[in-house]
């Protein structure tokens, strides 16, 4: 009798806890599916080819897929070139935003100077503007300067998007390198420049690489400015946008998959830094 009461008393909170646990995990699973299933489905579409599009009703199972349709898409005229153009523009964006942004981030992290707040305001102000729109007036200037319809031009406007981000994030990264380490290097015989390269740079490097990856993703994904500023030298996004209405469905899906894959790999590569970086840059 007493044994029985004991067990009921013990069982009810436990089952309550386990049902909450179950609820929690099914919520998490549902949200994971919400993210992953659409990507799986577009991959099916991209690998299913022309026939795959018209199968009705679809089962959602990976039947009748092969890499062939995707390779066919890759060999379509303009795809490889626009892929390379996207890489080029993203490369320029990464180089410029780090080269220009990291020194600014270092200055913000290490110095108190008059105008620091104004500079931060300028950087934050860019966030309140739909920056890609600036491509519109730049068309005229770029035509005059010979930058219109070039990868350099696209890289420049993408740097406007990535640079404020890079400055703020690298500020946080440099703040994360204790000032005492730098001072110790000075005391033990380094000049400022030596101390930076011997002590600060190696410790900040992983964070800077993560920032670079973000700059890459920003450029890789940008559609509007790239479409406005190019005619023949399209980036992949701009190319897909312009051929969208004339393309068969499975080409569109293949294009979508091709846009997604590199980004997913990159996000995976920097996953450890995601939260630190956004914790910093949202301050």
């Amino acid at each position, binding site marked *: 009798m007493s044994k029985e009461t004991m067990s009921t008393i013990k069982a009810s909170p436990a089952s309550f806890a386990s049902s909450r646990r179950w609820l929690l995990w099914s919520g998490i699973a549902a949200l994971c599916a919400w*993210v992953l299933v659409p990507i799986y489905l577009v991959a099916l579409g991209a690998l299913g080819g022309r026939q795959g599009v018209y199968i009705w009703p679809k089962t959602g199972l990976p039947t009748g897929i092969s890499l062939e349709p995707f390779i066919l898409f890759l060999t379509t005229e303009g795809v490889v070139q626009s892929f390379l153009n996207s890489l080029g523009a993203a490369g320029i964006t990464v180089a410029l935003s780090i080269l220009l942004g990291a020194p600014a981030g270092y200055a913000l992290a290490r110095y108190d100077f008059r105008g620091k707040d104004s500079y931060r305001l300028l950087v934050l102000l860019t*966030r309140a503007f739909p920056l890609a*729109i600036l491509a519109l007036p730049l068309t005229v200037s770029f035509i005059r300067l010979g930058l219109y319809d070039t990868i350099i031009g696209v890289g420049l406007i993408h740097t406007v998007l990535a640079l404020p981000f890079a400055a703020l994030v690298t500020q946080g990264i440099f703040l994360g390198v204790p000032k005492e380490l730098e001072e110790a290097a000075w005391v033990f015989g380094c000049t400022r420049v030596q101390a930076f390269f011997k002590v600060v740079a190696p410790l900040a490097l992983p964070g800077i690489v993560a920032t670079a990856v973000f700059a890459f993703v920003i450029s890789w994904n940008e559609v509007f400015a790239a479409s406005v500023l190019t005619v023949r030298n399209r980036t992949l996004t701009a190319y*897909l946008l312009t051929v969208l209405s004339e393309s068969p469905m499975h080409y*569109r899906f293949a294009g979508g998959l091709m846009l997604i894959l590199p980004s997913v790999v990159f*996000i995976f590569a920097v996953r450890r830094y*995601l939260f630190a970086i*956004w914790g910093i840059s949202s301050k």
Partner: protein
Amino acid sequence: MTQNRPWIPYLLILPSVAFLALLFVVPLVQTIWLALSDNGAPSLANAERMVTDINFTRSVRNTFLLTIVVVPVQIAIALAMGTMVSKVGRGRETILWIWTIPLGISDLAAGLVWLSILQNTGYFNSLLFSLGVIGRQASWLSYQTPIALFIAIAVAEIWRGTAIVMVIIVAGLNQVPKEFKEAAEIFGAGPWTRFWRITLPLIRPALQSALILRTVLAFEVFAVVYALGGRNFPVLVGEAYNWQNQNQNYSVAAVYAVLIMIISLAATLIYLKALKVDPERLP
């Protein structure tokens, strides 16, 4: 030592200032001039042309509706994700990685992903068909089904844009010391009260920057709309794109740009005022 060479920080920020001046401030001023002038004289002719265009009212209404629907849902999902993942020990990293995948996906790719699901022979129709809800293929993305199209675009935007909100909010939650919640629990606050009275006020800065970022991005919505609905669903940036590329009328495109900037800035200011962050009331 620090004060010996006061020019060092200025030297470090100079490249980025020069860059932003040339490619952010100058085009900004140019856009405003281009929008508010006609043949070199100040004029509202372009604005008039924009306002009288048949797509203008629809694009304003559509953009606002999308923002009003999408942003709150994203914040709600992100808060749910943040709360759930805070209860998870093992597997937390993997879950967070999966949830951040859309961060690397462009709006164009997101549009294409959902196109594969929602097109006439797509997975959504297949699902409804096999459940017996519909008898034949239904169309969701045509101009005849504006509400379905709106919902489709909103879903695609929510799918893609929640990740960034989630990252900012989780970064904010990570900074809230566990002791606050534990103290509230000891004094008898239930989970719901704890969330509203303790967690939410403490992550206000993160919430604020997530709202600003997402709202500005929501007013820039473009490629996802284009990929799903073509020109069936006019939005502000899409109209700017059409005036620029199809109609080759840079001035009206510039008026759209100025309008989007004004809306974005106004939204930012409203958030800054409404969600005033008092540094003294944060831990």
